[in-house]
């Protein structure tokens, strides 16, 4: 077993009295793809900034590539690639210049920067936009350019904070494809997301974070197995009848979740439950049987939905 590239022990960040990150511990192995899943405000971004060696921790231990980021900030950052939640490309520079300028920050020569920039423009499918102004790029292109920029230094670890938030489905899929290739090449990925499909697609292992704490940890499939059933039945009876019907449904399936607009029935066999509901003479307006997802895990763990 190779030693972890990131080790966090009781990692804590407090802003005055408020603990944004409240004593979380995890390890990331080299080449692993590790996710932090949780709603907005769970402390994911703060954790990422501490791992990115730009935010000092209040307490706990943190080691990245065997170094303490508090003492070796620049050294640690020289090995990281960072894709922040909000793009911070330089709008005053053109696409290729953005990459070159960034490469210089790692001490690369101009020649190295030029070579690397061209290679990464290819990778990010932006070669034909090399001379464009950053402002004229679409959201998806900007994101790809940010990712290209984060790779200028051949990072050991790539940190991605909500990489696809705000992108349309097509742009998301292009981006996932690029990230998947990096993963295949052995780059360690650490990403935060509040999209469960993204977490399922990209993460080997993840932690579910809420209110600055880790609620659960494991591979996506294992978490689903552990905290949810195989299938879920979603039924709607209209918002005024929901609560009423929920009382009568008690005992159907292994577990019920009553949401304002629908009822979720957790079960190994969704169709059977649906038949049972029909037998009871309850007629849902809509019904749907689907496989459990990380969303259900989160609901189970926190009693709240991921996207609110």
């Amino acid at each position, binding site marked *: *077993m*190779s*030693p972890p*590239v990131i080790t966090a022990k009781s990692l804590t960040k407090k802003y005055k009295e408020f603990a944004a990150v409240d004593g979380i511990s995890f390890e990331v*192995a*080299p*080449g*692993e793809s590790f996710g932090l899943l949780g709603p907005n405000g769970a402390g994911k971004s*703060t954790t990422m*900034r501490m791992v*990115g060696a*730009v*935010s*000092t921790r209040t307490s706990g231990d943190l080691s990245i*590539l*065997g*170094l303490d980021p508090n003492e*070796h*900030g*620049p*050294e*640690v*950052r*020289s*090995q*990281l690639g*960072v894709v*922040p939640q*909000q793009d*911070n*490309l*330089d*709008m*005053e*520079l053109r696409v290729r*210049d953005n990459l070159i*300028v*960034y490469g*210089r*920050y*790692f*001490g690369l020569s101009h020649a190295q920067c030029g070579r690397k920039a061209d290679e990464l423009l290819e990778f990010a499918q932006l070669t034909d936009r090399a001379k464009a102004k950053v402002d004229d790029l679409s959201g998806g292109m900007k994101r790809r350019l940010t990712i290209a*920029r984060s790779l200028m*230094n051949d990072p*050991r670890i790539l940190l991605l904070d909500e990489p696809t938030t705000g992108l349309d489905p097509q742009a998301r899929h292009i981006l996932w494809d690029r990230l998947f290739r990096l993963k295949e090449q052995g780059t360690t990925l650490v990403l935060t997301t509040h999209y469960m499909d993204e977490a399922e697609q990209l993460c080997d292992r993840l932690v579910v974070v809420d209110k600055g704490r880790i609620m659960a940890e494991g591979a996506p499939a294992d978490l689903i197995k552990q905290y949810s059933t195989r299938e879920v039945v979603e039924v709607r009876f209209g918002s005024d009848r929901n609560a009423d019907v929920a009382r009568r449904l008690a005992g159907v399936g292994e577990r019920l979740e009553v949401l304002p607009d629908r009822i979720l029935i957790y079960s190994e066999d969704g169709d059977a439950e649906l038949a049972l509901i029909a037998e009871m003479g309850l007629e849902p307006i809509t019904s749907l049987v689907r496989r459990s997802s990380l969303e259900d895990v989160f609901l189970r763990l926190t009693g709240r939905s991921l996207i609110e």
Partner: protein
Amino acid sequence: MTAVTEPFAAEAAGRALAGGVKPRRYGSWYVAEHRIRGMRSYLKTLLVTSVGNPLVYLFALGVGLASLIDKNLGPNGFNGVSYLAFVAPALLATAAVTVAAEECTYPIMMGFKWNPIFFGMNAAPITGNQIVNGVFISVLVRIIPTCVIYFLVMLLFGAVPSPWGALTILVATFTGLSVGLVIAAYTSRIVDDKGQMAMIMRFGITPMFLFSGTFFPLSQMPIFLQWIGWISPLWHGTQLGRVLSYGAVEPAWLSALHVLYPAALCVWGWTTTQRVVTRRLNK
């Protein structure tokens, strides 16, 4: 995963330690390089301004207005020199101050907010202090050519009687920098743009330009207004410039003060900006 253990860890840490060497040593220069690359997009404007401004100002004040004043006071009414020679060092210092103020307001506000490149730099191995240094280096890169061109135009107008006059370039640069650093210490704190920049210009730079003994000796103002000059780096820079450019007479301790005061402002502005920026990046 590849099955390496201890050697891997040592190699990773070693590579990181090596990766930090260059950024730690040259980081400030990388930031300056970045900012200068950004300036290239408005190079034409900068060139026209830095040549046009001295021509226009020296002509309007040093020739046009001077014709009124020299008629009234005689051709050598200012310590034995013309109004042109009197006003030129002030205009030179003002040009430096204007450029410094410009470069220490919007670009700093922008780096945190509208075009938050400072966070990007900091995510790379660049520290907050280096970002500040780099910005200030790029400010100098703008001030120095501005002053050199200004001085050449001054020579063209015959506004520099003394051979020591070339040193006014240094004095003006230093004056501009001291104002810029103090402004930067403030703008680096601004979180919401509520028009503070316009306020700095209207209630800081403009009155300083008008009441710092630039167009007329400070003693021309009532004593209760003269403090504006004493605290204004522009007055100190202008007075020192006059000593060098035409041998204006003043006590040596005052000349020393003209150097020490802006130097103190520089040190204060520099360290404060570094502290503020570092704190702000460390969220």
